[in-house]
């Protein structure tokens, strides 16, 4: 990044807005020049004159012409994003931080646990693993959501279920008559997974409370802390380790993370808040 202004975004056109759920939309962005990122790294999306917020792309890191972010309406910037129709110009900065440790997943049984909009960064990882499926033993993806309407990426779930090396298990907190899969919080799926823990690495992304209980469960199952990876959500404003808002102990989550091995952060204060 040397020589460039680290705060200056690249312009990108919003090519498509996709409704994923009543509270979640995806935005297909076409940057004015090719944009490369590694799965799990994040970008800052700026709405001109309004604000900027961090998102981990939900698209494949193997495609540089377009990228996609999947956004839950939770705050000032995301609310404005949800009002976009397509055709708008946004700014993007990045990619920033440390992504998923692909090399640590090769040759392993990968257990992925996602909650809610945490599926967004995980879809990028799944795309990546799908493209390199000969390098992994298998992928078990456990996905938990509030209710069937909030289950995102339905077509992609169906696609994954047709790939031999991929198993997808889903649960919702509140089921309706259409729901045929599990009911309960995401950890209920962990009672049912079939993995060889000694050969496995786990990746967890979701709301803090879901990550907390998932990690507890993984530890009970026998996963060592060094085999559990988490993507932390903090207030990453500058994204370059300077503004201080995302500090977690001595770490700048934006620069040292957002993906951490659990043993690196387990003793830091208030990691689940």
């Amino acid at each position, binding site marked *: 990044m040397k020589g460039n202004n680290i705060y*200056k975004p690249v312009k990108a056109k919003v090519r498509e807005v996709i409704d994923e759920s009543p509270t979640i939309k995806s935005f297909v962005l076409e940057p004015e020049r090719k944009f490369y990122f590694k799965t799990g790294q994040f970008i800052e999306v700026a709405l001109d004159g309004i604000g900027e917020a961090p998102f981990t792309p939900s698209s494949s890191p193997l495609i540089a012409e377009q990228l996609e972010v999947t956004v*839950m309406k939770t705050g000032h910037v995301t609310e404005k994003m949800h009002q976009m129709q397509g055709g708008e110009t946004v700014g993007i900065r990045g990619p920033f931080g440390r992504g998923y440790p692909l090399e640590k997943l090769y040759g392993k049984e990968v257990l992925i646990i996602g909650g809610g909009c945490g599926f967004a960064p995980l879809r990028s990882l799944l795309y990546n693993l799908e493209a390199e499926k000969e390098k992994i033993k298998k992928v078990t993806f456990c996905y938990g959501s509030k209710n069937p309407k909030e289950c995102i990426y339905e077509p992609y779930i169906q696609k994954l279920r047709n790939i031999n090396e991929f198993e997808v298990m889903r649960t919702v907190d509140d089921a309706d008559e259409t729901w045929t899969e599990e009911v309960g919080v995401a950890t209920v799926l962990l009672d049912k997974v079939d993995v060889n823990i000694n050969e496995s690495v786990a990746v967890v992304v979701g709301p803090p409370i879901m990550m907390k209980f998932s990690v507890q469960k993984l530890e009970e199952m026998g996963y060592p802390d060094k085999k559990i990876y988490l993507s932390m959500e*903090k207030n990453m404003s500058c994204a370059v*380790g*300077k503004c201080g808002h995302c500090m977690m102990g*001595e770490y700048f989550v934006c620069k040292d993370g957002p993906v951490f091995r659990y043993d690196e952060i387990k003793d830091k204060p208030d990691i689940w808040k």
Partner: protein
Amino acid sequence: MDTYRSLSKQEWEKALTQLLNHYHIYAPLAWGENQDYERIDEDSVADIIYNRPKPASPLKTFFLPVKENVINTEKSDKKRIILGIPSCDLSGANILDEIYLDDVFVDPAYKKNRDESILIGSDCHTLQEHCHCTTYGIRPYPEENHDLTLSLVEDTIFMHINSDKGEQLVREIGNITQLSEPTENEIQEILDKRKAVEEELNRRNRDLPNYNATGDLINSSGDEIWKKYSETCVSCGACATICPTCTCFLLLERPGFEKVRHLDACQYPGFEKVAAGEDPLKELYKRFRNRYMCKYVWKPEKFESTACTGCGRCIEACIGNISKNELFMELYNK
């Protein structure tokens, strides 16, 4: 570059007046017992105060102004000379440089502000009530991050050259007026003054802990001490604002994809709050503790430089009368 030059105060003021044509000059001006950096003009050159610590604002305000556009970082019309910088503030620039000029991401606005400044450090010939730099291993005279050191003894200005920039400036002054080389006795007088002030600081602060070794004390402290000392804290953020090494900021969007940086502080509610609602620093005592953890535990783990310099401004600025030194004494003596 171990070189001294001297000139009379009158000639120095004449030279400064000439330099105003090419530089913006900032120097401490006093009001009562207090002082702060002000932009100097022909009329105020004679009012500059020398060798008296310390300006109300820390040096960081020149590199990290309260508000600054970080996208438009064009060169300024003139470089600036900053006079009268105490040693504590110069040492404080180390951690600023580590954060803002790191190996991966150089902050362009900070770099510009840093590059465009000629830093003239000042020997402290007197002390303020809460000065305690020596507990951090910092001496009351400039040793780093400066281009010149300046001492006024009786009616003579002594300059010590510390960098190429400093040498260049002395050359410019030499073109305006005649410079002398001080005698050994005169240099000895400067060194004696330094020694006397350092001894006074050591004597005054002998009961304070060695601050470079307080991380473990803080790390192992329970909640009580933070709850006790934050009882009168009102989250005003004055301690962080006035701190030469607190560097956090907010980025705000401006039309045209521009960004404006505003200095911020972990003492304000909502500093770490995320859009989804989680806020690790929701409780006041946790915010209060956060600043100490940051300075004495986390920054030392991550950076080489100390994140506190013993300037004592946080003690002076606190409307709740919270003294960091008292807090540490209590922790230390437990």
